């Protein structure tokens, strides 16, 4: 397996250049984001790779993965549709939106479509409270996709259209 530093030399270089040379640990979060976009999740091997680049242990790196919700330690759908169901969005019908969307896709909340492409999850506030129902799409498993994309003022129909587009990609 080629290393992250070889595979994405420019990205890695740009990340490392942001921090003082003696503070490489600061790069752990962006590097994890990069490996996750490459692999779709953070594997044990990736933990070790990132840990070495940052001069910390695999355990310390795993702590970061475990603490922050945008990192995943298991592979699910290529696209994670993350619907905000927090208070403000819920006041604007987000819970209903989520359940109808899942129903339309035939999966439970948190489930993945059989083709492995789409996972639908409920998440906490995404700072788009005035544009509910809304969700973000976390694209995983390819660094060429946009990492995260917001989709606001959604209906189940518009969401399903988008999902179809994502499946075609």
């Amino acid at each position, binding site marked *: 397996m080629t290393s992250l530093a070889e595979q994405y030399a420019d990205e890695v270089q740009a990340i490392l250049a942001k921090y003082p040379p003696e503070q490489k640990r600061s790069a752990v979060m962006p590097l994890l984001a990069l490996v996750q976009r490459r692999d779709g999740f953070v594997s044990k091997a990736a933990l070790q790779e990132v840990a070495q680049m940052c001069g910390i242990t695999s355990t310390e790196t795993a702590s970061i993965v475990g603490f922050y919700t945008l990192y995943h330690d298991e592979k699910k759908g290529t696209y994670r549709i993350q619907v905000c169901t927090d208070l403000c969005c819920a006041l604007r019908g987000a819970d209903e939106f989520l359940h109808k969307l899942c129903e339309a896709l035939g999966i439970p909340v948190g489930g993945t479509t059989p083709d492995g492409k789409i996972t639908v999850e409920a998440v906490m506030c995404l700072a788009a409270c*005035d544009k509910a129902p809304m969700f973000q799409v976390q694209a995983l498993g390819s660094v060429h996709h946009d990492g995260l994309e917001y989709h606001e003022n959604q209906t189940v129909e518009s969401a399903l259209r988008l999902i179809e587009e994502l499946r075609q990609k």
Partner: protein
Amino acid sequence: MTEIKQYVLLRHRDVPGLDQLDVYRQEGGFAAFQQAVTAMQPGQVTDVVKASGLRGRGGAGFPTGMKWSFIDNNNWPHYVVANADESEPGTFKDREIMEKNPFQFLEGLALCCYAVQANAAYIYLRGEFWQQAHFLDAKIAEMEAAGLLGEHLFGTEYSLRIYTHLGAGAYICGEETALLESLEGKLGQPRLRPPFPPSFGLYGKPTIVNNVETLANLPLILEKGAAWYRTYGTDKSPGVKIFSLSGKVNKPGNYELPLGTTFRQLIFQHGGGLPEGRQIKAIMPAGASSSLIVATEQALDTPMDYESVPSVGAQLGSASVIVIDDSVNVAWLINKTMHFFKHESCGKCTPCRDGTYWMMHLAERIAGGEASWADVELLREVAGQVKGKCFCALGEFSIEAVLSSIERFPADFEQITHKEA
């Protein structure tokens, strides 16, 4: 009170294309920064900000100029960190500034850096702001190309670099010391204070952490002066504020208004009131961290500034006004907020870690109609047990909605709890 004729923070609504560097410069952009770097001592910049009375817009309302003056000048280098972690449910103002008026924010950040003589600044964005971070990266690159960032700015010895840094999903990182921990590549758990960031911040160096909105105020304060800024707002809460309005209201969105504008003006005049046939029941003025204000006539006429909101039993905080109508049972509402706080508790201190877990379960049972009044009493007691014991404000905020709901809307709970067996 002065009405706003021209936007201060949401100027893009007046000036199309303000997110383009040439447009921003045509509008006088970066003149304040250039003026500061070439013709002002750093301390003079701080003095202007102090005189403006600007207070931190992240929620705490701490005087910005005073915070800067705490920077430890016996320990170098200095850092400035822009807090763009915007994660409070109901808050979405920083995002609009960064998306639509990025240069004003970046210039404000640069001014802060010059005032405290920092040569490097980080913008800590919540991980979900992936696109905003890349957008800002492009804007930063444009500034570098235009000689507004880099070495020897405007022919002086002063140099400055700005970097974006993405979080990865953690509300607690809005707390400034947790944010610094996260930026250092550690768990986003708050630090013991003192020492405070102006003496011991990023990498143990003196650091100023300011909210995006706070920083976006600076270019015009420097350009037009402290006295001009004080023409907005009240004596103790000068200036303008972006109110994020959400919930059961016709026109949710960001509204830039002078501090001291009343709830009624925001909700009914600007926000278009509630949907047909609905009555306003409660207001949460500071997002999920807020107490619920009973929406009485008197409450609606209360000015939204740091001093007045406490008189109706809440705090202004980040001014994220959530409108609750009479269709909502507040037991449902606190079930939502408790799920949020339980999910976002960092786990460092006992009362927050175990208290939010316990309260969430109680709130869930109560909201689900599976609880008795004794459970409501227990919830209130548990919230009381959390109060005053937490390591940081997150745990303390988690109980505001709970305690105020039970105290101010007991009927909602009586309605859905079953009688004692």
